[in-house]
């Protein structure tokens, strides 16, 4: 068995006195899609945010490609980890194209033409070739989120993190974003995603990780989880959704 691409090893995380992550172990293989589910406040988003060090952990280790993210240069780690947020966080003063091309030119030092050419391709890939010159304010939520995905992909990350990326969207716009993520999964992108969309989790996830109170209480291949969860917690969680 090959080494995992991302691995959590005994991760503890506190906000002040409260422990939000409790001895978390998790390994994500290359090309694997792991879907993290669980009740709100269970630490799902925090788990994701620890990977690119938007949150600091108090003990344990997180490795990408066998290298700990803790003692690496944080900006270098983040170039290898693409992140998409619930609230899009597009740069409102930049066009869709500039949003996507900004980091490749500024951080990687690509020539502007190369970066813009690639931004064009990426926007095309998320179905927004005709919106390159639009400002985020003129785009729908679904379009903004697709630009945000293109922006993260522009840095050619080895792993993508999706933090409840459809939670802020109108129901009729969820589909277009999920289609893009599904496309990435088929292309073999390694992904760690937090979602409340169980139908989507079922479709795109290779494995389901169920969290509760900062702990991983169950990890099961997707199909098995939705048919017959291993744990009582899993059964409870599923039954509450039905």
């Amino acid at each position, binding site marked *: 068995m090959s080494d995992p691409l991302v691995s959590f090893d005994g991760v503890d995380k506190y906000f002040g006195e409260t422990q939000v992550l409790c001895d978390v172990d998790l390994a994500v293989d290359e090309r694997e899609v792991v879907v993290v589910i669980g009740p709100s406040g269970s630490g799902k988003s925090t788990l994701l945010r620890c990977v690119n060090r938007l949150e600091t952990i108090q003990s344990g280790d997180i490795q990408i490609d066998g290298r700990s993210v803790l003692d690496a240069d944080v900006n270098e780690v983040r170039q290898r980890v693409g992140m998409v947020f619930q609230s899009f966080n597009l740069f409102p003063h930049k066009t869709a194209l500039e949003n996507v091309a900004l980091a490749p*030119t500024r951080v990687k030092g690509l020539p502007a033409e190369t970066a813009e050419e690639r931004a064009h391709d990426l926007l095309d890939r998320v179905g927004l070739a005709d919106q390159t010159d639009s400002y985020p304010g003129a785009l729908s939520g679904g379009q903004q989120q697709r630009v945000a995905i293109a922006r993260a992909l522009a840095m050619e990350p080895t792993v993508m993190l999706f933090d409840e990326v459809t939670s802020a969207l109108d129901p009729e716009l969820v589909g277009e974003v999920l289609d893009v993520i599904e496309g990435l999964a088929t292309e073999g992108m390694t992904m760690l995603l937090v979602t409340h969309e169980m139908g989507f989790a079922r479709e795109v996830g290779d494995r389901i990780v169920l969290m509760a109170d900062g702990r991983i209480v169950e990890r099961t291949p997707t199909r098995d989880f939705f048919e017959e969860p291993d744990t009582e917690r899993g059964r409870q969680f599923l039954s509450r959704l039905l």
Partner: protein
Amino acid sequence: MATQTDSETQSSGVLMRDRLVRRVGEFAAGGFVLAVGGLLVWILTTQVNVQLLTSPLIAGRFFEAFLLVVRIVVISSVLSVTAGVLVGLGRISTSPITGRIATGYIEFFRGTPLLFQLFVIYFGVPRLWATGEFPFQDWAVPAAIIGLTLNHAAYVGEAIRGGIDAVPDGQMEAARSLGMSRVMALRTVVMPQAWRNALAAIGNDQIILVKDTSLLTVIAVPEIMSVFRNINSNQLDPWTPLVWVCVLYLAITMSMSQFVDGLERRSDWGSDGGMFGRLSRFSSGGADDADGGRES
């Protein structure tokens, strides 16, 4: 909708009252305008000496003062906004020392009168040198520019800090997640938005700066109010020079607000993505390219 008739009769009562209030308001406003307009016309016709008003001597002296004020305003504006950006950045600095220095700076310069600050610089500072050693021959104008700059940098700094605070945290997070350093994220993502947020407050402050130049009369800067005092005491005619004073200040402040409006429109990347959006892309894109865009 079921109680349409009911609510209609109710709302028609409210409507009548609203209309009455509006009528009273319009009447009061109209009366006010008429009274002020009448008083103005009366003053202009009875109190203002048209011959004196248009005499080349007075016009020339006011014009000279006007040019001096414009020069002082332009220099102090540029310096105070530049320094204000630094003060604002200092306020949000992660270093507690820098943060405290910036806070102290703002507290001091907002907390003491500008006139006091001008006295410190104009009277106080030259005394720190031995008699006759102070290098500036004519210290009044430099002292004025330094005083206005230091004072208004504090206000601009607070406006900038407010503008930065109004930028959602997600912007910094998104920029950092793409591998940008904090400085790069501030410069390319946060500050352009903070600037846009702060523009109205900064413009407001810069208009106050224009009017603050009137205080310079007490440190012997030959500005507009000094010319007024001079003419008034020579001619014993306040109203004629006051017309000049009014027109000249308005000329500066109104150009200033036009300029700020222009800046605001240029950086309006609002929801339409239309003309304003394109304009702002044009300008900010140009600036981005100009600095080569590499920093890691």
